């Protein structure tokens, strides 16, 4: 029997020494239910054994008051808590894109709901293999369809995100989703059980056999070739989730709910043990009272099930019925399944017998590993600046045409139009016209939100690549007038037991921590997704950064589109001769070589402050930070994203002498493109001087052409209508 239990433990993904540790904790052989509970709670997905120790590097405080707790963290502005978190649903989406992505949205929304905040926006950061590949197209369509299916139905607008194609994601796509919620600071609910004799209430959908071991098996292993033993995927039920949101918020308002936690990965095991542990008490649960969908479910199945749309509540014992009534009114299951006890124990009973009894503290403190790291050998090979030897093409107009219709640079409209990005009527800067701004009804201020990461930069230099992601997200926000306030992340890497992958991970963590600290941004929450590998190898390191900012006067928010004929177009920041890691090199020459552009955090900060100052004074007509595709793509976006396309004519002489491709398509950091009415030009220039940021007037908006000249020589001259069409339709025509 003991030998058999050890075998079960190893099969469920526990290591030999972990099993030994369990023996020590319990002082006896664990029951199968206990093994199941340890296996999910100590899995990579829930317990973060390979990453937890590094989180200490992250700043927990910053420019704004921060909330960094066990669950969704956030920031506080003028008494309002803004909680946000990002999470991966990579593996389920790779197996079943529609439902995998849908349940990802459902899960992250419940995470935010569990803090007591109303979810007000979602973001999705998506990475797929090359668009030429049929499977990638299938995955993209399925994932977008799944997010639309779930997100639109629950009534939380999906307002922003990213979409990136790269062959490294061929066998393992990335689907990272983020949710943001708001609540009065004092209305946030703790994720803990408290008060002896208070009740543990189960609400939402019934428990079935779906997703059993999802987190230990699915998210903690690589995809093998021709995998047969495919793990089960859950089906999303957004209708129930919508009712769950309303009922939960109503229940919280009643004041009878003392603690709450979503049942996400590891389901009942995770929610019950973590509520007990953080309440420094215990819970006793009777599985016969859990609403189940199938007969004869074993204890371990109920404890491990990842059925969706469920929450666990700790309820004042005097007011059980009032809370139950609220959930019943919304047509949801609600059952008292247990109570709070004083001892540090999670006690699970079934059919009158104790099937598990584990100290909550021990269960929720998984082992910590620090595996070896080795700097990968490829780095020296790819960072040799060999791009300097390539011979630039002769027709820049043609290059531009190719760039604007490429999978990575073209408009994302095909994606965000499938998402209801307006429900709740708070979206004041819409996706596609700059960084999204949400208002808060009855407040003057608003929220900016963005996500960012360039996996190629991170592959070429994980430390710098991650810093660029942080800097770019902050620049995104500042360019529309939102002061960066806090970070959430989703760190997508390969197998941490492979030293080169682990090195990438640690470099990224260090880059993130340092940049965040420098900008005064707390890392309030996050998620780690390891084992993103296929037989072809690991995905490019992708530490997705989600960032939230505050705009003091939401009426000042601006977009990236040129709005007025005859306004001056100014490039802020320096352009260097940098092409490493650029989209241009990849698209035109199939070259993926570095080094990625340099990032100077001090300059970035000055640029952010400058942009915030300019926007808050109402001096800018449009503003857009430069990123992939460089200056040329920023000009295109300025021209084509407005209600009416508008031309522009610029002269690049003032940017200095360098390769023309670097001038047009280089991706130097620390830059933004703004347009200014003639009356404000002098004032803008003098403010730029004060911030020590170079401001070069490139030309004027107007006409129906995009014209780029250098020393009076025409590099590009093309009708904006044509570019607009190419840019807007590219993605859907490639599908």
């Amino acid at each position, binding site marked *: 029997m003991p030998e058999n239990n050890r075998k079960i433990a190893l099969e469920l993904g526990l290591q030999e020494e972990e099993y030994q540790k369990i023996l020590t904790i319990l002082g006896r052989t664990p029951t199968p239910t206990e093994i199941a509970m340890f296996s999910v709670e100590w899995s990579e997905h829930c317990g973060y054994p390979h990453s937890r120790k590094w989180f200490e590097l992250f700043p927990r405080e910053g420019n704004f008051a921060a909330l960094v707790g066990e669950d969704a963290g956030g920031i506080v502005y003028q008494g309002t808590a803004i909680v946000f978190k990002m999470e991966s649903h990579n593996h389920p989406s790779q197996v079943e894109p529609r439902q995998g992505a849908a349940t990802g949205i459902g899960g992250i929304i419940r995470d935010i709901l569990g803090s007591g905040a109303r979810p007000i926006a979602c973001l999705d950061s998506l990475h797929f293999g090359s668009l030429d590949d049929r499977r990638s197209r299938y995955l993209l369509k399925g994932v977008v369809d799944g997010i639309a299916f779930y997100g639109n139905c629950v009534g939380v607008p999906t307002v922003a995100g990213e979409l990136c194609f790269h062959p490294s994601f061929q066998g393992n796509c990335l689907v990272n989703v983020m949710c943001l919620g708001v609540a009065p600071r004092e209305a946030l609910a703790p994720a803990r059980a408290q008060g002896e004799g208070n009740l543990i209430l189960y609400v939402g*959908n019934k428990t*079935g056999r779906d997703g059993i071991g999802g987190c230990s098996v699915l998210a903690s292993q690589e995809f093998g070739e021709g995998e047969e033993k495919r793990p089960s*995927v859950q089906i999303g039920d957004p209708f129930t989730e919508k009712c769950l949101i309303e009922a939960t918020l109503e229940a919280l308002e009643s004041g009878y709910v003392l603690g709450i936690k979503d049942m996400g990965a590891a389901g009942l095991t995770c929610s019950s043990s973590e509520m007990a542990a953080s309440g420094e008490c215990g819970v006793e649960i009777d599985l016969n009272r859990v609403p189940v969908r*199938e007969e004869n479910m074993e204890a371990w199945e109920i404890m491990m099930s990842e059925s969706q749309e469920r929450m666990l509540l700790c309820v004042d014992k005097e007011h059980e019925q009032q809370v139950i009534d609220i959930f019943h009114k919304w047509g949801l299951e609600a059952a008292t399944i247990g109570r709070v006890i004083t001892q540090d124990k999670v006690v699970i009973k079934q059919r009158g017998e104790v099937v598990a009894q584990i100290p909550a503290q021990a269960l929720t403190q998984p082992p910590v590993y620090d595996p070896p790291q080795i700097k990968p050998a490829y780095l020296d090979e790819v960072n040799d600046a060999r791009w300097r030897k390539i011979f630039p093409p002769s027709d820049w107009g043609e290059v531009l045409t190719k760039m604007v219709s490429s999978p990575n640079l073209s408009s994302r409209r095909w994606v965000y139009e499938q998402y209801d990005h307006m429900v709740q009527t708070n979206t004041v800067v819409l996706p596609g016209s700059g960084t999204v701004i949400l208002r808060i009804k009855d407040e003057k201020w608003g929220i900016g939100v963005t996500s960012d990461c360039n996996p190629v930069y991170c592959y070429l230099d994980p430390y710098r690549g991650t810093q660029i992601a942080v800097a770019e997200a902050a620049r995104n926000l500042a360019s529309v007038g939102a002061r960066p306030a806090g970070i959430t992340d989703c760190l997508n890497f390969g197998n941490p037991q492979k030293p080169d992958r682990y090195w990438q991970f640690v470099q990224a963590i260090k880059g993130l921590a340092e940049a965040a600290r420098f900008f005064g941004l707390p890392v309030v929450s996050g998620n780690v997704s390891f084992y993103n590998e296929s037989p072809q190898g690991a995905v490019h390191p992708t530490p997705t950064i989600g960032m939230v900012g505050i705009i003091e006067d939401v009426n000042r928010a601006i977009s990236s589109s040129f709005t007025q004929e005859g306004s001056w177009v100014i490039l802020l920041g320096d352009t260097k001769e940098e092409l490493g890691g650029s989209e241009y090199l990849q698209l035109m020459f199939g070259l993926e070589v570095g080094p990625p552009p340099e990032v100077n955090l001090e300059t970035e900060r000055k640029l952010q402050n400058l942009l915030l100052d300019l926007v808050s004074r109402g001096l800018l007509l449009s503003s857009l930070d430069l990123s992939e595709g460089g200056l040329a793509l920023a000009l295109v976006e300025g021209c084509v994203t407005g209600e009416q396309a508008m031309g522009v004519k610029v002269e690049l002489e003032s940017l200095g002498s360098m390769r023309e491709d670097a001038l047009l398509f280089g991706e130097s950091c620390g830059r933004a493109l703004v347009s200014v009415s003639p009356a404000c030009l002098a004032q803008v220039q003098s403010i730029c001087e004060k911030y020590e940021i170079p401001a070069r007037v490139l030309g004027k908006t107007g006409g129906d052409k995009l014209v780029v000249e250098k020393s009076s020589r025409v590099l590009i001259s093309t009708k904006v209508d044509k570019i607009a069409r190419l840019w807007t339709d590219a993605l859907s025509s490639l599908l």
Partner: protein
Amino acid sequence: MNFIGKVVVLLKEGVFDPQGVTIKNALHNLSFSQVSRVRTGKYFEVEFEADSESEAENQLKSMCQELLSNPVIEEYSFQVETE
């Protein structure tokens, strides 16, 4: 020869079918209380050419496996009829 393939795709037994549950509840509210379960699925009629009935069956099977169903969560069944 012209064939019509009639394909039914259902969620596998044990996979949660939220639509089915909601429809069952709606039927109960309409006082069809005798209903104990509703399973929902997709239905396709595919009109196509093939040289023979067995050839048609093979082709339809490939369509089901490659596009019309996802074996992770769904199972399919079909019938082939001549037009």
